[in-house]
Structures are given as structure tokens and as C-alpha cells.
């Protein structure tokens, strides 16, 4: 119960912050602020990824008013499960790539991406340390050899993918990486 209450309390607290306080705590409260942040030079990637939205509606506004920023929204750590699920079926492949590398994806979105038509996206799912056993299982018969072998190795040796045997990709050839299309 406490786990459910805390996010709500934090949400309320964010709503009450003054604009100055929001800037200081790396919080944006409208789509324009995020657009300005991404447009700034030099680009501050760490901030783009870590900046929090005062409410989730900000992300929906960004997607509506600045659709070209979808890839950056997908990489933001405060984007909600619902926003990420929406972006998991986005028409732009790069946005789906960013979602597939994200932490905090729902199981449904992860499975959706594990069946993406693009090998590049499925490779991200296979490499995401947070990919579930279910999603990895969906990749063990993948048509792309690298995706298939990586998923199989994680299931067999180390679910996190950090301690895989060095030989599991030994017989990969150029043909196995014929991704394109």
C-alpha cells in the first residue's frame, strides 16, 4: 500500500512547485520547455534523459506538438509506462529503438517490441538488461541469428546478459546480419 501511496504524494508535491523551484529541480511543465531543452547547443543528453515532467500530460503534448521529438521522449526516464507503450508501436523505427532500450517497460510493450518487424528493434530487446524471461523466450526462434543467439545465451547462462560465454557468437557471418530491407 505504501508503494502505491508514495508516487501519488510525489505527484501532488510536483504540482505545487513554483516555476523557479521546478527549474532548479530539473522539472518541466510544458511541451515548449522540452523542445527548447532538446534544441539547446551543446545538447545536454543527460538532462534530456533525466528531466522530469510535472505531469504525464506534458509528454503527450510533446508528442502531439513536436512529433519529431518522440525519440527523445522515449529515452526519458520519467516517461510513463503508458507513454512508452504508445511509442512501442510508433511508425518511426528510431523511436521504437529508443523504447526497446528503455527501462521500466511493461511486459506487454516488451513483448510487442520482441515481435517488431525490424531486426534492429528486436536486437535492442535482446540486449536490454531488463528484458523479461518471457520476452527473451519470444526471441529464441527469431529469424535474425544474432538476436536468436543472444536471447538463447541469456536464457541459458545469465538472464541479465552481463556474463555470457565469449564463444556464443563465433559462427556469425555477414549473411546473418542481413537486416536491410
Amino acid at each position: 500500500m505504501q508503494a502505491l501511496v508514495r508516487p501519488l504524494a510525489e505527484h501532488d508535491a510536483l504540482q505545487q512547485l513554483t516555476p523557479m523551484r521546478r527549474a532548479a529541480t530539473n522539472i518541466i511543465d510544458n511541451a515548449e520547455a522540452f523542445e527548447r531543452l532538446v534544441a539547446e547547443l551543446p545538447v545536454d543528453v543527460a538532462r534530456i534523459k533525466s528531466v522530469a515532467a510535472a505531469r504525464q500530460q506534458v509528454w503527450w503534448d510533446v508528442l502531439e506538438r513536436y512529433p519529431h521529438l518522440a525519440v527523445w521522449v522515449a529515452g526519458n526516464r520519467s516517461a510513463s509506462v503508458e507513454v512508452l507503450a504508445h511509442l512501442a508501436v510508433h511508425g518511426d523505427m528510431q523511436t521504437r529503438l529508443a523504447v526497446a532500450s528503455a527501462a521500466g517497460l511493461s511486459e506487454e510493450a516488451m513483448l510487442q517490441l520482441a515481435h517488431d518487424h525490424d531486426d534492429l528493434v528486436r536486437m535492442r530487446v535482446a540486449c536490454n538488461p531488463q528484458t523479461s524471461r518471457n520476452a527473451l523466450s519470444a526471441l529464441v526462434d527469431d529469424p535474425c541469428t544474432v538476436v536468436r543467439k543472444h536471447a538463447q545465451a541469456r536464457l541459458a547462462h545469465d538472464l541479465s546478459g552481463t556474463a555470457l560465454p565469449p564463444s556464443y557468437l563465433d559462427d556469425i557471418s555477414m549473411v546473418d546480419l542481413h537486416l536491410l530491407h
Partner: protein
Amino acid sequence: MKPMLMSDVGWCKAMKDAFAQHGLDVDALLAEAGLDLDTAEEIDLGELTDGFSRAWELAVAKTGNPAIGLTVPSHPLNSLGVLSHVVLSASNVRDALQAIMRFIHLISPTATIDSKAEGDRFFLSLQIASGKRPVPLQRYDFYSTVLLRGIHWLTGRRVVPLVFHRPGPAPAEPARWREAFGCNVVFGAPECVIEMALQDIALPIPTADQAVADLCERIATQLAEQQGGSVSIRVRQVLMKHLSKGDPRRETMASILCMSERTLQRRLTEEGTSFAELVDEVRREMAQRYFQHSQFSPTEITFALGFSDPSNFYRACKRWFGRSPSTMRCSN
């Protein structure tokens, strides 16, 4: 290892894509150029690059469009091929370009890319191996266009070079090149160079992912090692970059390619060539290019090709072209 067809190599696909956009019958054009890419797995590099050059010459002739090299492929990934994962997972443009430089022979066996930074500028230079015929300038246009569009696609920002240095004489409509590159274009340059602002090279790639980058780097390295027939190509690529530093030595080459001198010699013998032959071929190709596309004096070319003595270059020139360097200079 499963066979790899040249028609599947990234840059071939991009070239065919560009030709198709101009309504050309690609298969017929490639056949006319003598390029049979579906059986070209072990094709000689000289024949291959000549085939590509002939294909571009035919494309220019058939369309009447000397700016056809400025055509943008329908998707940048077409040209990146197996390197798609690597560049998409790189943290910034510089890392992506460095990966392309390291593994370019996986997507384009006839090209090499080099870079250097000076002050607040970044210089990306492109070399294309020539065979018996000169390299059409449209091939340089195409590589440069694809690289710049690729950066745009990766970063989501239109990166405009500061200057584009293009070899060869100015075309009839130079404005088309200035418009395409969005910057000043210097024609008659000694080599093809894209000059960019250093800050553009630092632009981040929003799809960066270190875990995927590491995995893909490992696979690309493995594939590069598996390309058993590519040692001569790699030797040629290194020679093109390093000739100007002096007479090339086999032991230095072996060290650059991370293999023993004996292994290098054995691999080249297996491929029916030798280090000395490759040095001679690359020098001849580069001499031809310098005579055709630069204003370098014979003495300057002597040193650019790594000859320690002009008399050696004189003898080589007579052997290659049947003419002395000064006669070659005058006739070009």
C-alpha cells in the same frame, strides 16, 4: 561461413537505389557496366571499382545529369548495411563516423575514409580506389551526400558542412552542388574532403545504447576478421592513407593490421598478390589521380606517393604510363 554476395553489400544497394530513383533500368545498366554483383564474392578490387565507375559513367550518360551523385538514397540504412546497429547505438556523431571508418570495408570495399580535427574544425576525407579507369566524381558526390544525410537521420538535425572540397574541375552548374551541400564548394581540390564544425561532430545520437554498441562492435570486428579475402583490400586502404609518410615497409603494414609479417605475406600469397605488387598498384592509381585531379608538380607527387627519390618515380611513371612525369603533367 556462408557466402556473401557483393549485391548485398550496403553501398551497392544504395547505388542501385539511387539509379532506380532516376528511372534507370538498374540490372541492365549494371550488366552493361560489366558488374555481375551476384557472383562477385571474390572479384578483384580493381575490376570491382572499375565496374562501379563504369556504372556511374553510364548513369550520367543515360540521364544526362552530371549531378546524379547528389541523389539521396530512399533510406540511409541502405548504405550502412551491417553497420546500422553500430552507428545507431553510438553515443555521438564522432563515434559513429569512427565506426564507419574502422569497418568501411564491410559496406564498401573500394573506399576509405579518414579524419582529423584542427582547431574548431573536423575534416572527413574520402578516398576511392581506382582501377584502370579514373573514378567518376559522381562517386565522391554520392558518398559525401550519403554520409551527410546519414548524420542528419541519426541526429535529427541538419548538419551543414562549412566547406565541401571536391576533386576535379568545376561542373557547368556549380550552384547545384552548393545547394545540395548547403555550403561553399571548392572545386579542383586535391582530394574529397567534408569540412565540418567540431561541435556538429559532438552531436548526440538519441538511440545510443552502450550495451548494443559493445555487442555490435564485437560482431563487426569478428566479421572483419572473417573476411579472409580482404587482407589485400585492407593493405590497399592503409597504403592510400600512409603512402605520403614515406616508402612503405611490410613490417609496418603487418603491425598496423595486427598480424605478423609472415602471416601478412602468406595471406597475400594466398590471394595471388604480394606486398610489393600492392604498393606498386596503389602508387600507380594515386599517381593517375594526382595527374588528373590536382595541380601537384611531379616533385610533389613523388613525395605524396612515398618515393624517396624522384628518379624512382620517373622510372615507375615510364613503366606505368609509358611517359615521364613531366609529360604526364603537361598532358593532364
